[in-house]
């Protein structure tokens, strides 16, 4: 009955969504929003200077801009498929251009890998079956991956956790009271989360309770005891835009290493909420492998900072990202003076500032391929509907541009 589809609304890439006669069972708000985009009035059209044109004209104009540019930056790729990301990388190599990702997403995964987190990465299905303690660090499923708690981390019953929530200890650590704290055993809304992590590490190292200033000693002692009593603890972490991901990742990897030394089987899963964050990370990690940088210059074969990449470029090819929405003000001011070629699915702030906008297909809705789930598992995404007239995949755009 019905057909199973893979949802590309968030990095969980849920593969169990049931489609029966245009109704989607089990899909969350992020997923239905992405599917609804197919017939949305806000779909991006092929435009030059705000005027709607046909696909040939828009590709010619984009090619013209790219050919006349000395320094090109390709930026974003948030909802591109793995094949699309590879196509953009190959274009950047051929053009000797720069490539950059959003400062808050794929680097999270790269940084985690760089500091040794990869050895603790296990599939989310493992978390569902075995994890008896889940420690959310700056991660709020109610924001970024809605089904994380119901499908993997909090409620589902698994082999070692037959009663689901009853068998799990949930810890939520953040700077603010988040939605996951509503269902957590330990609701740690504290101003200095790094101090809490430091004290946890020190307490385990020294085998004594050393509470942080924000948590009473009795509560911290219970928390510590619950962590050490667990067998398969999982740390799911994210970082806010004002935080240094390296600082968090280093501490979490250290914490996981200590727990492993105590005989536990810890798991670390980084998550940011961007659909193909792990795909971007796995494709780009061989270039952008320094935790301080999110851009790579193929001309000089070196990593550079995003602000330098933006100021050095004269044309920015923004791929499936709303740069004007999320970049800091100083970078936005720089962007205003550049030629912007946008490839995206929908109208955004960036589409209003772009010289050329190219309408793209929606991966997982109008075009197929592969994406990588936040735990590193590859997922085949499918085509549900025929794309709107003249919308292009990333591979098609790259082929036409070069």
């Amino acid at each position, binding site marked *: 009955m019905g057909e199973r589809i893979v949802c590309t609304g968030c990095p969980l890439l849920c593969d169990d969504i049931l489609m029966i006669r245009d109704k*989607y069972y*089990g899909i969350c*708000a992020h997923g239905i929003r992405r599917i609804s985009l197919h017939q949305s009035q806000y779909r991006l059209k092929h435009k030059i200077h705000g005027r709607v044109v046909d696909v040939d004209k828009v590709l010619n104009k984009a090619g013209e801009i790219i050919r006349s540019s000395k320094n090109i930056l390709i930026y974003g790729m948030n909802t591109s498929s793995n094949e699309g990301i590879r196509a953009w990388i190959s274009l950047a190599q051929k053009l000797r251009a720069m490539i950059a990702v959003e400062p808050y997403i794929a680097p999270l995964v790269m940084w985690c890998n760089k500091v040794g987190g990869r050895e603790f990465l296990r599939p989310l299905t493992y978390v569902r079956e075995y994890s008896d303690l889940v420690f959310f660090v700056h991660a709020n499923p109610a924001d970024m991956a*809605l*089904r994380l708690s119901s499908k993997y981390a909090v409620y*589902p019953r698994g082999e070692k956790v037959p009663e689901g929530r009853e068998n799990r200890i949930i810890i939520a650590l953040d700077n603010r009271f988040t939605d996951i704290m509503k269902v957590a055993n330990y609701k740690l809304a504290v101003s200095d989360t790094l101090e809490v992590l430091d004290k946890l590490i020190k307490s385990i190292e020294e085998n004594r309770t050393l509470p942080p200033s924000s948590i009473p000693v009795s509560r911290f002692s219970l928390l510590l005891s619950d962590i050490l009593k667990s067998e398969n603890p999982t740390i799911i972490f994210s970082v806010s835009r004002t935080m240094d991901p390296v600082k968090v990742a280093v501490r979490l990897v250290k914490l996981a290493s200590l727990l492993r030394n105590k005989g536990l089987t810890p798991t670390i899963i980084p998550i940011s909420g961007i659909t193909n964050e792990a795909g971007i990370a796995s494709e780009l990690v061989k270039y952008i492998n320094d935790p301080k940088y999110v851009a790579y210059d193929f001309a000089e074969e070196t990593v550079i900072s995003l602000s330098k990449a933006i100021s050095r470029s004269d044309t920015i090819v923004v791929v499936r990202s709303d740069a004007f929405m999320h970049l800091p003000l100083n970078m936005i001011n720089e962007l205003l003076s550049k030629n912007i070629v946008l490839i995206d699915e929908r109208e955004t702030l960036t589409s209003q500032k772009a010289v050329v906008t190219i309408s793209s297909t929606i991966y997982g809705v109008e075009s197929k391929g592969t994406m990588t789930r936040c735990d590193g598992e590859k997922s085949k995404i499918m085509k549900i509907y025929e794309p709107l007239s003249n919308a292009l995949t990333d591979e098609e755009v790259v082929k036409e541009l070069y």
Partner: protein
Amino acid sequence: MTGRVSVLEIYKLLPRTNCRKCGMTCMSFAAKLLRGEVGIEMCPVLFDPEYKGNLEKLREILPKKSDKPVEVVDPDKCSGCGNCVVACPANVAANTDLGKGLVSVSDKLIFLVVNGRVELLHPEYCRRLPPTKLQCRVCEESCYMGIIRVYEV
């Protein structure tokens, strides 16, 4: 928010004289009030003018009686996270796949997420109803958006 009250909160609003005019101590009366086993009117002292404020407050905070055990009060706010679907023991008993976090459709489901929001299909299978009459509120407690309400039936 869920609006859940504790026995102690109710107890504090009672006269706390242990006069036993209702046939029990104030603490027992508070517990039974919360479970919906007795009504406020069984405590005559509470209707004295000096307890007028307490009475009003009690009427405000006590679980409301309804002919349905559960309701999704604002479906437009639902994010479709599916916590209620997986947490509800009656749902999972009707379809074990749901208990594993997997999407599945079958008869006798109380909650099901369709097109990004939860639908209340068969509240008549809720464990709060006879014959079990359990004081279960996991759906209400698991809802991030606070849009599920359970009632005393």
